[in-house]
């Protein structure tokens, strides 16, 4: 019972802290679900996000459903998903019903300003986390900043680098939809695995 409550509250928390799109949820989910509670590994989370990009619906909902299922089956899955929407539902309803002008108050504008800047930082952090799962072979070893040597198995994957750069250019120049970019990434990755074999 208490563990069902935990998963519900955890996703309520993610929902309340999500200002500005699904990507900024990545560091929050990794910090709790991977590093603290070990519901899944970092690699599995990366793969889950890959699947989320190919299946319909918001990435946040997809992650909640899957992580919830790993934690305790269908009921947990439902609780995590409902947890992710419950606070939004209440707050949006309050905003619509009463406090029409609330977004002009000093406190809301100040909070928005702070959260917007912290979400910028979290999206950049999400990029560095994904670099450690694609372009580099291991998570980026930030401890080298304090003078520790670079781990020996930390190298660049050139396929990863090429795909990441191509994908960034394709999104920036609006060459094609993100679905096509993701599918192309999968095909190039699989073909490269075949060639390397």
């Amino acid at each position, binding site marked *: 019972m208490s563990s069902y409550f935990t998963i519900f509250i955890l996703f309520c928390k993610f929902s309340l802290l999500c200002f500005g799109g699904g990507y900024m949820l990545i560091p929050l989910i990794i910090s709790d679900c991977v590093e603290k509670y070990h519901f899944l590994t970092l690699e599995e989370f990366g793969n889950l996000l890959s699947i989320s990009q190919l299946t319909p619906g*918001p990435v946040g909902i997809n992650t909640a459903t899957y992580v919830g299922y790993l934690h305790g089956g269908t009921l947990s899955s439902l609780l995590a998903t409902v947890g992710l929407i419950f606070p939004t539902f209440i*707050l949006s309803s309050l905003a619509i019903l009463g406090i029409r002008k609330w977004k002009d108050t000093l406190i809301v504008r100040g909070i928005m300003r*702070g959260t917007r800047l912290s979400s910028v930082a979290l999206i950049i952090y999400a990029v560095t986390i994904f670099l450690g*799962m694609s372009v580099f072979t291991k998570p980026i070893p930030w401890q080298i900043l304090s003078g520790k040597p670079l781990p020996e198995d930390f190298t660049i994957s050139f396929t990863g680098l090429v795909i990441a750069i191509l994908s960034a250019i394709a999104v920036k120049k609006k060459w094609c939809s993100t679905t096509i970019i993701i599918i192309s990434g999968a095909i190039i990755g*699989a073909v490269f695995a075949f060639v390397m074999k």
Partner: protein
Amino acid sequence: MKFDKEYFSKLFLLFWTFAKIAALVVGGGLAMLPVIEETFVNRKKILTSDELLDMISLTQTVPGIIAVNSAVYVGWKVAGFFGAIFAVTGVILPSFLVILFIAILFPELKPDNIYIKGAFAGVRAAITGMIAVTAFNTVKKSVKSKIDAALVVAAFVACAIFKVNPAYVICSAMPVGLLLLVWKKEESK
């Protein structure tokens, strides 16, 4: 609001439209807005374009998944509390069912096959590029001064290098943002 046949057909319309949007629009959030506009503003004429703009500005100040915020707003406007419930259910049901199905089939996302592993690695790289562009765009949009830049760097260093839980970083950013706003106001007076 009368609970008559018209009301129930509105509830069904909300559920069905949002389920359709969630099932067909891959990419979520902002990609949904044009579809909402087409359905509720242009075709059914039960929302005005002013209300749509109001919805967009509201979704940016209320935390949470953008798709859910939008569904709550349209639901309330069209059919009150139950409208919001039906719209939100519509938005989450397709993703929930698809992912639950995948989770039941693959409770471990650790493929052994090297081609599948390669494909996942390729997708992770593609996502890296996509998030990098989003990061670039949000920096351009939100970072307006040296103080902004310093705060972003501080938040990044706290999370990435000192491994502070991002939840604490977001919570501490709230009073900092407020102080910044108050301080700037004093300065401009």
